[in-house]
């Protein structure tokens, strides 16, 4: 990796983060006075005023913005409007649960999506292909929470096998992970299928066959690595979204992760926490995207991310 290349990427990431924070900051302040929303109607004006002063909401917007940014840079994300605890601590205690669920769901997504896409591509136009593609459309168009509710109805209410909400045992993970994992498997399958179809017709696949390689070896050693870039890209986007994007599933299953924290904070107008969560989500997205960009050069040596990839 060459220095200027990394530096440029890095600067772009910082800019993206800044834009995300700015956008959230402005939009949240345009959407009404949080103090009035949080306090009861009969609270005296004096009290409201004192809260505003405490949270700095009485200052002009530009000043509030600059103060916020300068604190974030120093690692201070402010305190929650509700219970005065530091935002960083509130978020940090939710992260393990979210990562747990997110990675489990990602595993399910990959286990279903990639083989599904490969099988569909290898059987292009045949019944298997149509069935797989039909399922992906179904998975894509069914809302995320619907499967969750159906699972709860069957496994929790009817069979009484699995807990419908909460956290703690592996049983608590099963339904949220399946709901979250399957919601994206269809998209991965579609990307895998189209990437594979493009690769399967390439001349080097014929060479592999002319060498006497069997089909499994041709698929795993030649086709899939060449189809990897679009697949990795779409998975990376999902990886970033899994951190904050499980809002619906976490809400349905009462799962205490980042997603439900975001939903609650928005409902309660806890601006500091909302800003903190959005920043975290933006940060995750940016980091995964950067990571993916860097893997391209490793996945395909023709993509020059370094000086040494030049002509031999």
């Amino acid at each position: 990796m060459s220095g200027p290349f990394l530096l440029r990427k890095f600067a772009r990431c910082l800019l993206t983060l800044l834009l995300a924070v700015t956008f959230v900051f402005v939009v949240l302040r345009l959407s009404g006075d949080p103090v009035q929303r949080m306090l009861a109607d009969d609270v005296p004006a004096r009290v409201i005023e004192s809260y505003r002063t405490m949270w700095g909401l009485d200052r002009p917007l530009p000043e509030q913005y600059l103060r916020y940014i300068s604190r974030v840079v120093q690692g201070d994300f402010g305190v929650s409007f509700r219970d005065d605890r530091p935002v960083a601590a509130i978020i940090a205690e939710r992260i393990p649960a979210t990562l747990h669920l997110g990675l489990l769901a990602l595993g399910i997504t990959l286990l279903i999506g990639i083989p599904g896409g490969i099988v569909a591509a290898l059987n292009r136009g045949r019944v298997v292909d149509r069935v797989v593609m039909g399922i992906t459309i179904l998975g894509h168009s069914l809302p995320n929470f619907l499967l969750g509710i159906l699972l709860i109805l069957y496994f929790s209410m009817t069979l009484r096998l699995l807990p419908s909400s909460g956290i703690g045992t592996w049983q608590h993970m099963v339904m949220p992970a399946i709901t979250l994992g399957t919601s994206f498997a269809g998209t991965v399958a579609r990307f895998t299928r189209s990437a594979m179809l493009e690769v399967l017709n390439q001349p080097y696949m014929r060479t592999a066959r002319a060498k006497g390689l069997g089909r499994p070896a041709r698929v795993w050693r030649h086709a899939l690595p060449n189809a990897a870039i679009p697949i990795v890209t779409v998975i990376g986007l999902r990886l970033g979204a899994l951190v904050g994007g499980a809002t619906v599933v976490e809400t349905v299953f009462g799962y205490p992760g980042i997603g439900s924290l975001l939903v609650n904070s928005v409902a309660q107008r806890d601006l500091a926490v909302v800003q903190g969560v959005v920043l975290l989500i933006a940060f995750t997205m940016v980091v995964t995207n950067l990571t993916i960009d860097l893997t391209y050069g490793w996945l395909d040596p023709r993509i020059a991310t370094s000086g040494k990839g030049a002509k031999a």
Partner: protein
Amino acid sequence: MTLPGIITLDGSAVRPAVQTRSARIGGPALSVTDLSVRRGSVALVENTSLSVATGETLCLVGESGCGKSLTCTAIMGLIDAPLAAEGSIRLLGREIADLPERQLNGVRGRDVAMIFQDPMAALNPIQRVGAQVAEILSVHGTTSAAERGREVLALFERVGLPDPARQARAYPHQLSGGMCQRVMIAMAIACRPKVLIADEPTTALDVTIQAQILRLLRELQDDTGMAIVFVTHDLGVVAEIADRVAVMYSGRVVEEAGVHEIFDAPRHPYTRALMACRVGTGQPGTALPAITGSVPAPSARPDGCIFAPRCDHAGPLCLVRPALTQRGTSGTRVACHHPEEAQ
């Protein structure tokens, strides 16, 4: 499509350069009988028969779309739906046309190997070329990685790649087209196949590189005694490498003869027309001759002789009755109603 520079690899006019090498030519290595490749009811290649002996080079020539490449692909068993191949393909006396895919995989790359027109595209772009050559060794039984590594270096050395150890670690995009074709050849000869199918292996290369690749193939043939089926539309290349020539037209072989006979006394009007179209045979300042019209689509072949609509000598018989193959002495054959009259 003939590149002007190819006419003369040695500076003279196009003439068969290959001296008779009958001493080295042995028994049949590959014989194809009545091979047809169909898409639905349309025959893209029809009743094609070819044979090539150990140490011999058979050139398949003809215009684009006449079924040369398809014939090769069918010999390798690489025909997939919606195409279907039928007919007999005997490799060293063993029928391979009906082999199931798994057994065919044991034959491909080991007994019969293939090199392709665009070597850069025929190599996996994200694998080091050394690994790609090593892979064919591992498929066909070289279990030790160290041994494979040594063999790859020896093969690279043999096909004239400079600094084999470094080239083995290169990716295809870091090599030139000619070097990629040498890698492909190294891969093809890795398991010492008895038959090499070369599908326009020099078409995508520079003229000077073409000559080097042809010379390399000849040397390798002299060393190993492999039979070569060489597809080209370039008569300069034919003169350079062929022992025998089969001329294909619209999915069929219309004439087959030794390379000298093809150049000195072509019998089929199509072959003669091809010869007349060679660059470098006409008078300076005159327009190059061309065969008028184009190859009929396989779905719209004429009832009579397939070449009749473009033939200067076609008579009433040619328009109504297909021309059957007439066999001559020493394996020559021609599919024409009036091969002698048209002379």
